[in-house]
């Protein structure tokens, strides 16, 4: 956490220690040591950050572009590339501050706008007491998450949204939807602050000191996001990224309407080669996404890596074999999409589930997402062009709920650390599932309603959809004046 918070914790401790200096009273324990930054953790986080960027450009960009028609491929690439660039800047200027500083439990404040006060020596907490990482790398790492989340949404309304609408939508969406949800799920004071306050409480000898120490501990615990306080767990962003983007995509697809000619006209993917390349880059980059969310190069990271391998493989095969049985042929698009569904589902579970649990999670995610993207989507009749809802929202919900089950040590999970008690808490199925459900529903409502409002606002300002002629001609030429291919 910041030096400021540590200083306050240490100061409280110092005062208590001075009060208890009377030899007649119990001995005050030594003040908590200053957290250290280790080069291995920093090196890993630098790498993980770059891997997550790779996921978006070119991973997601190619994954999506390969699935649209030739005449729109460039427009999809542009949407994703633009999103990265604009969110990077917004994050640095005010996004990080809104998401990851104290304020309310729903949103932070502007204390670190323009990265005020952040230097290369500033530190950020990890999940281990005493271990920190440079705050700037934490900022950069989270920045790549803020960038990929809105980039996921563009798949839902591909091939028919004006670039001006996308350009306006993205900044509004990250500001009013992403930053609050990231804050609610992930913001907290950090283990060092909680541990210091808990130790101060344990050391407090008399009633007055105990009351003061308890108040301090309560204050530290309250300095966190609303869903964090519920106890909802989300290791790398099942709710913050996937359910969030997924529901925003569905709402967008419903508001903008179906593509002309859908579903009767031929709209096959123009390059499944490109789709597979993009999907594979997504898998590779996802190791940065999941294992990097451990914030240290330690056991949690290696567990997340293993889970990211097995869940993905299981989901890819599950989709492929279910499709083979249901439709008669196993498809590459299915296998790659299944892999992505597995990656999405394992995201919240990656640092909590055991590998065998992750396999089960992958199998379920692959099969369920297949049924969603084929049977349910066709029955419902909405044109979520690139299955953002079917893969990211549904996969994210599966992951978020199964995380609550698979974290159970009896099922190979890690259990959840109680930093106040300084040990792993007893697994409580009902309360954990309640917390997970609250997180899922909150995300669906906040993002669903928030996104709907933003789409409407953008529609009023620039209009969402291109004209019929432009849609027929193709967005590459009409919106960007370019062809993806000049062969």
């Amino acid at each position: 956490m910041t030096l400021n918070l540590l200083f306050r914790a240490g100061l409280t401790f110092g005062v208590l220690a001075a009060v208890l200096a009377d030899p007649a009273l119990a001995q005050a324990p030594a003040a908590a040591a200053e957290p250290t930054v280790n080069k291995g953790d920093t090196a890993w986080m630098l790498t993980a950050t770059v891997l997550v960027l790779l996921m978006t450009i070119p991973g997601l960009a190619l994954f999506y572009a390969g699935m649209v028609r030739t005449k729109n491929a460039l427009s999809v690439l542009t949407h994703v590339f633009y999103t990265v660039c604009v969110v990077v800047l917004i994050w640095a200027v005010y996004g990080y501050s809104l998401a990851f500083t104290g304020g309310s439990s729903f949103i932070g404040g502007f204390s670190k706008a323009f990265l005020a006060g952040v230097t290369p020596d500033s530190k950020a907490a990890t999940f281990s007491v005493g271990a920190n990482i440079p705050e700037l790398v934490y900022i950069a790492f989270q920045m790549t998450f803020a960038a990929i989340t809105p980039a996921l949404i563009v798949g839902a309304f591909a091939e028919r949204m004006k670039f001006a609408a996308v350009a306006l939508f993205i900044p509004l969406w990250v500001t009013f939807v992403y930053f609050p949800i990231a804050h609610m799920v992930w913001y907290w004071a950090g283990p060092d602050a909680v541990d210091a306050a808990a130790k101060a409480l344990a050391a407090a000898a008399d009633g007055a000191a105990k009351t003061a120490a308890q108040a301090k501990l309560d204050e530290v615990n309250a300095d966190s996001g609303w869903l964090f306080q519920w106890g909802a767990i989300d290791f790398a962003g099942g709710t913050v990224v996937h359910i969030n983007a997924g529901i925003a995509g569905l709402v967008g697809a419903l508001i903008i309407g179906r593509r002309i000619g859908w579903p009767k006209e031929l709209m096959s993917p123009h390059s499944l080669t490109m789709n597979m390349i993009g999907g594979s880059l997504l898998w590779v980059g996802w190791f940065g996404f999941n294992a990097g969310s451990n914030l240290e190069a330690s056991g949690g990271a290696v567990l997340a890596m293993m889970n990211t391998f097995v869940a993905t493989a299981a989901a890819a095969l599950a989709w492929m074999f279910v499709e083979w049985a249901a439709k008669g042929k196993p498809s590459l698009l299915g296998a790659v999409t299944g892999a992505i569904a597995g990656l999405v589902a394992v995201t919240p579970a990656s640092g909590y589930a055991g590998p065998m649990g992750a396999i089960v999670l992958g199998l379920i995610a692959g099969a369920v997402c297949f049924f969603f993207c084929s049977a349910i989507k066709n029955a419902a009749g909405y044109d979520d062009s690139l299955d953002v809802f079917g893969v990211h929202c549904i996969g994210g919900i599966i992951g978020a709920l199964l995380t609550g089950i698979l974290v159970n040590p009896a099922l190979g999970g890690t259990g959840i650390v109680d930093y106040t008690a300084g040990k792993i808490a007893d697994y409580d199925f009902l309360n954990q599932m309640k917390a997970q459900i609250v997180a899922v529903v909150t995300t669906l409502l906040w993002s669903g309603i928030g996104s709907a409002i933003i789409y409407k606002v953008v529609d009023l300002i620039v209009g969402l959809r291109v004209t019929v002629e432009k849609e027929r001609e193709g967005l590459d030429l009409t919106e960007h004046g370019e062809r993806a291919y000049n062969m």
Partner: protein
Amino acid sequence: MKIVMAIIKPFKLDEVRDSLTAIGVHGMTVTEVKGYGRQKGHTEIYRGTEYAVSFLPKLKIEVAVPADQADKVIDTITAAAKTGQIGDGKIFVFGLDQAVRIRTGETDVAAL
């Protein structure tokens, strides 16, 4: 003069070209086309969406020949391009009014 236009299955190109060379026809134009006749298409499935694709890839070969050679060219192409399966293709013959070799200026049969 005639233009003999043949729609054939793509993998038959080399065989047709070799047979035509053997009877003294030394030039042709080839275009990649799509089409269908009695050959049915196939179904493609992308995630949930199924498409019935009736257009199949074919090659269109065009050869300009003297009128008296047209029948021989038709027979040669037919023999080379035939597999006996539906979708072998069709041959059409058009009258050709004039021909010019651009490099030398030769006209009509001398240009073929």
